[in-house]
C-alpha cells in the first residue's frame, strides 16, 4: 500500500535525528552496541543496527561518547558512555524536542484540547 510506505518514509525521517538523543541519554549507563540496540528497541525507538553502529562511532569521533574495550566477558565488547559534552548536548536537544512539541501543538489549530492531552500522554510514555 502506497499510504503506509509514505508514512514509513516520513516516520523514519522524523525518528532519524531522535536516535542521537536517545543514544546519548541511554548511554549515561555504559553500554555496548547490541545492548543499546536492544534497549532502544524495548523503549520503542526504531534504530536499525546498520545505522546505529556507525552512528556510535561518529558520536565518539565528535567527543560526545567515550569508549573502552571490556575484555572480561565471554567476548571483547566495546563499551560506550556519554561524555560530559555529550550529556550537555543531550540536555540541549531535549529542550529543542520540547520546543518542537510546543510549536506543533500551537500550530495544530484543528485539534481540540482533549485529543491534545491524549497525544501528550502517549508521547510521555515512550522514552
Amino acid at each position, binding site marked *: 500500500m502506497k499510504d503506509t510506505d509514505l508514512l514509513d518514509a516520513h516516520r523514519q525521517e522524523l525518528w532519524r535525528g531522535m536516535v542521537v538523543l536517545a543514544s546519548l541519554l541511554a548511554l549515561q549507563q555504559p553500554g555496548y*552496541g547490541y545492548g543499546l540496540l536492544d534497549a532502544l528497541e524495548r523503549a520503542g525507538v526504531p534504530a536499525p543496527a*546498520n545505522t546505529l*553502529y556507525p552512528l556510535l*562511532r561518529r558520536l565518539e569521533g565528535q567527543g560526545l561518547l567515550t569508549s573502552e574495550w571490556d575484555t572480561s566477558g565471554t*567476548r571483547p565488547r*566495546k563499551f560506550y558512555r556519554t561524555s560530559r559534552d555529550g550529556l550537555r548536548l543531550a540536555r540541549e536537544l531535549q529542550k529543542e524536542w520540547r520546543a518542537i512539541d510546543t510549536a506543533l501543538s500551537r500550530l495544530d489549530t484543528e485539534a481540540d484540547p482533549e485529543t491534545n492531552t491524549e497525544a501528550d500522554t502517549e508521547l510521555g510514555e515512550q522514552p
Partner: protein
Amino acid sequence: MSTTLTDRYVAAAVRHVSGKHRGEIDRELRAAIADDVEARVSLGERPGQAEYAALAELGDPAQLATRYADKATVLIGPANYPYYAKAMRLLSATVLPITYLVNAIGHWVRGENVATAIFSPLGVTLTAAVYLFAGVTVLYVLVDRFGSERGPGEPDQDWKPDQLPFSDATATTTWSEVGSGIVLAVLLVVALFVQRSATLVATASGARVPVLDPALWGFWVPFFVVVLVLSLALAVANLRLGRWTLATAVAGTVLILAATGPLAYLFFEARVLNPALGSVFTSTGSWIGWLALVVLAAITVAVLAKTWRHRDRQRIEVQ
C-alpha cells in the same frame, strides 16, 4: 579454520574502510554480530539460522561501509548540479550540431553521396558526445570536491540578494556560460590548428587540404584568436561585476563588431575557405558568402540587443 559467513560479511564491510579504523570496526562488528546470534539462539533458533538472520538484518555490507566512512556518496552535489546540467545542455546544443555539420560538409565536399554525408558523421558526433559528457562531468566533479571551502553538496552560505539575476534571466553571465565559453574557445582553437594538418576535406583530385584558406594565418587567425580571448576576459569580468557597466557594454560592442565585421567581409570576399576546394567557395558573393553574412548579422544584432537591453533594464531596476 574455515571461513564463516560472519568472516565474509565483516571482510566485505571493512574492505572500503580506511586502514586506521579497519581493525577496530572489524572487532566491533564481530562482537555485535555474535551478540545478536547469541540472543537469537537463546530464543530457540539454530546457530546457523541465527547467524544468517543476524547478517541479513545488518544488510548490504557495502552500504554499511559507506555509513562508517561518512564520506560524500554523490558525484556532484546539489550546490553544483544546476550549473553542471546547464553547462551540459549548453555545450551539447552547440558542440554536437557543429561537429555534425562540419563533418557532413566535409563528406559532401569530398563528393560522397547524400546518404554517406548524412549518416557517416553520426559516429563522430556520438564519439564527441561521449567525450563531452565525460569531460564536463569530470570537470564538475573536481569543482564539487575542491572548488570551494564548503563541503561537497553544501549550499552557498554567503549568498546575498545582490546575486539575483536581473529579470531578463538569459542576459546575465553565469559560471556555466563562461565555463562553456572557455571549453568552446579551446575546442575552436584546437580545431583551427588540427584542420591545418589532419583535415577531413579533399579536393576533387583527392589531395587533402586544410578547410581554411592558409593565407588567413598571416593576420586574420591571430586577430580572431585575440578577439576570442578578450571576449572571454570580458565575460569573466562581467561575472565578477554581476552586471553590465557602460565600459563593459561598450567593450562588448566593440568586440562583437571586431569579430563579426571582418568575418563577414572575409566570407563575402571568399577568403575564408581554402580556394583549392573548388570554385563554389572562391567566387566573390557566392551563396556561402551571403549565408555567412546573414548568420553573422543575426548574431551581431542578437548580442548587441542582449547587451544594451539588459543594461537599460538594469538601470531601471537599480533606480
